[in-house]
């Protein structure tokens, strides 16, 4: 299959996520369970033959959410709830998991629990102090409880072999996506940022075994793929969740390419693998504590250091970015709390930054001029020498 064909399939899954999930249930007879954040331990869900799907917004004004979440809650969380209230998930979602996410997603979950008919709810207590060794011990216990709950739900015991295959499916997916990202280091990447990120969205929505298959084919195709476009300025995009394809396409149509990201709908989701060890649950626990943290969980044990910042800088260097666009869902506290520090940190390391605040729908006109100007700023030499 042609690379573009594969990438189109990713886009289709993202666009038609509900149809895909319904079809998957028909095909496999398995359960589909939604997650509201990337701290849901999907390894165990795969071990239980459950398809985990990330709840995403629909990029339409979340008018149904207003009676349940007033205006100060982030547009993404309100959009997610709105999708639920619209009944988009009614005829297939078997359960919903909250993994101690930010207060905004907790709001959406709380209202969903009451107003969106869903057979099963689970509150997974992902610890916040991920840099404390104590968190790993605690999380192991939490995983054991979660495993039990899943066994009760499916009526099937989860064996070590099941967990191993769950870990393997996830790790393979992580490894393959990382290999695809590798291609973005090239001078003229054979895959656009929009395509690459859509690939990640798809992996949060489709059966990773199928996703892995497509990734393997993609990896064969990419070496020979030539894109009929200028790479232009190499940009990094940073933020919480972002599946705003319209925005990514706009930026990549005006002389720039996103070569890397730090998003929980991007690299932050899959960058690190589970390091297998005899105690499987402990191995998974270690992974979720050691992975690149959400700003919400990123603080030092003896000082005010952050773990995520040097990681972002390393990515920026490895992928040779010329500038970074910091996006933020309006009202997103976890990121708002980091952005002033992150901007200083990157600019001190000679990476120009530009900040954009996102709503459910992006005012493309307004954003275009800002991004164009940012690109011109980076390319100043072209205008002045």
């Amino acid at each position, binding site marked *: 299959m042609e690379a573009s064909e594969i990438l189109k399939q990713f886009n289709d899954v993202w666009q038609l996520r509900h149809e895909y999930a319904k079809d998957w249930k028909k095909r496999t007879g398995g359960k589909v369970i939604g997650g509201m954040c990337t701290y849901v331990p999907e390894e165990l869900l795969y071990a239980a033959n459950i398809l985990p799907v990330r709840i995403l917004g629909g990029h339409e004004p979340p008018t149904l959410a207003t009676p349940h979440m007033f205006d100060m809650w982030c547009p993404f969380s309100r959009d997610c709830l709105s999708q639920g209230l619209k009944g988009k998930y009614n005829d297939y979602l078997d359960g919903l998991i909250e993994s101690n996410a930010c207060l905004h997603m907790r709001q959406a979950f709380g209202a969903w629990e009451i107003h969106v008919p869903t057979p099963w709810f689970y509150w997974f207590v992902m610890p916040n102090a991920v840099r404390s060794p104590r968190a790993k011990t605690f999380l192991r216990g939490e995983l054991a409880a979660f495993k039990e709950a899943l066994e009760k739900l499916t009526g099937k015991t989860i064996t070590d072999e099941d967990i191993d295959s769950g870990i393997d499916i996830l790790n393979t997916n992580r490894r393959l996506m990382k290999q695809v990202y590798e291609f973005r280091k090239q001078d003229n990447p054979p895959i656009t940022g929009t395509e690459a990120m859509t690939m990640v969205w798809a992996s949060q929505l489709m059966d990773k075994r199928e996703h892995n298959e497509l990734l393997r084919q993609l990896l064969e195709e990419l070496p020979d793929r030539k894109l009929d476009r200028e790479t232009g300025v190499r940009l990094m995009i940073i933020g919480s969740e972002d599946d705003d394809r319209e925005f990514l396409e706009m930026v990549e149509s005006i002389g720039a390419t996103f070569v890397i990201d730090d998003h929980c709908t991007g690299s932050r989701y899959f960058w690190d693998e589970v390091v297998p060890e005899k105690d499987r649950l402990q191995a998974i626990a270690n992974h979720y504590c050691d992975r690149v943290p959400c700003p919400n969980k990123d603080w030092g044990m003896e000082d005010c250091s952050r773990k995520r910042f040097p990681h972002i800088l390393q990515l920026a260097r490895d992928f040779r970015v010329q500038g970074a666009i910091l996006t933020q869902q309006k009202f997103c506290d976890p990121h708002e709390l980091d952005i002033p520090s992150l901007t200083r940190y990157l600019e001190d390391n000679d990476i120009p930054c530009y900040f954009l*605040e996102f709503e459910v729908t992006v005012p493309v006109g*307004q954003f275009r*001029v800002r991004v*164009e*100007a940012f690109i011109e*700023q980076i390319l100043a030499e072209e*205008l*002045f*020498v």
Partner: protein
Amino acid sequence: MVEAKKVEFWRWPETSWVNPDIDWKKGKFITAGIDVGSVSSQAVVMVDGELYAYSNTRTGYDSPESAWKCLNMALEKSDLTADNLDYCIGTGYGRVNVPMAQRAITEIACHARGANFMYGPEVRTVMDMGGQDCKAIRCDNRGAVMKFMMNDKCAAGTGRGMEVFADLIGVPVWEIGERSFQIEKEPPMISSTCAVFAKTEVVGLLQEGVPENDIIAAYCSAMAHRICELLNRLGIEEKFVITGGIAKNIGVVKRLEKEMGVTTVELTWYAPKMRDKGLPFETQIAGGIGAAVFGAAMLERGKAKSARKA
């Protein structure tokens, strides 16, 4: 259009000017910069990097039309025509819809470059108050953008806001500045951040019989304050200049200077020259100037080739 019937207090008068001392036929490069903003449009024509002609007009429903309108108005009193242009750059909101332009550059880059041309190379911070946005720009001695910020989501404190206000109290926008100082003591600023709710607040004050000039003052300081918030985020560095329509409103400028503790730069070498020519100095053409200057530089550096038709 809707207000067609009444007097339009919110409109700056349309202006145009041609430099009598320049014989464009002797010029090597004739470049134009056309800034089609969301509210007003300017055309600037330069001969070898010297200001030759400009116009400042209102943007209409259709931007290609507006672009032609302002270019024609600039050349009204000259025998120079669009066909004589070597290179034309479009900027501003409608930059991609400027039919006679060979290239488009954003108003951010153009305003920084224009300010550098108009106010000299020591300019480090440029504040452009446009119709619907307000940009704070940090630039280097070449007028290259180092960093910039724009107001987000809410248009509180934009030129448009000021227009709505002028229209509301029925005071011509060009009188606002002066009137804002004809007061006994500085009143507290209008508190509402929303242009529409500010309107409500103003009506309230008028009803309570607060003198018009006090309200004007209150609105000017509110607007100055909003701009300061943006400048604070960017971090202001002197020399500091303001371009765009609001620069003509001393009511805002003086209050902004006071709050920021800076003084906006007086025009450098350029000013006397223009005054001698009896030129009503037009701060709104900074974007157009920047565009035209970019054009000239590109031709000189052979980065662009002449598109002259006649």
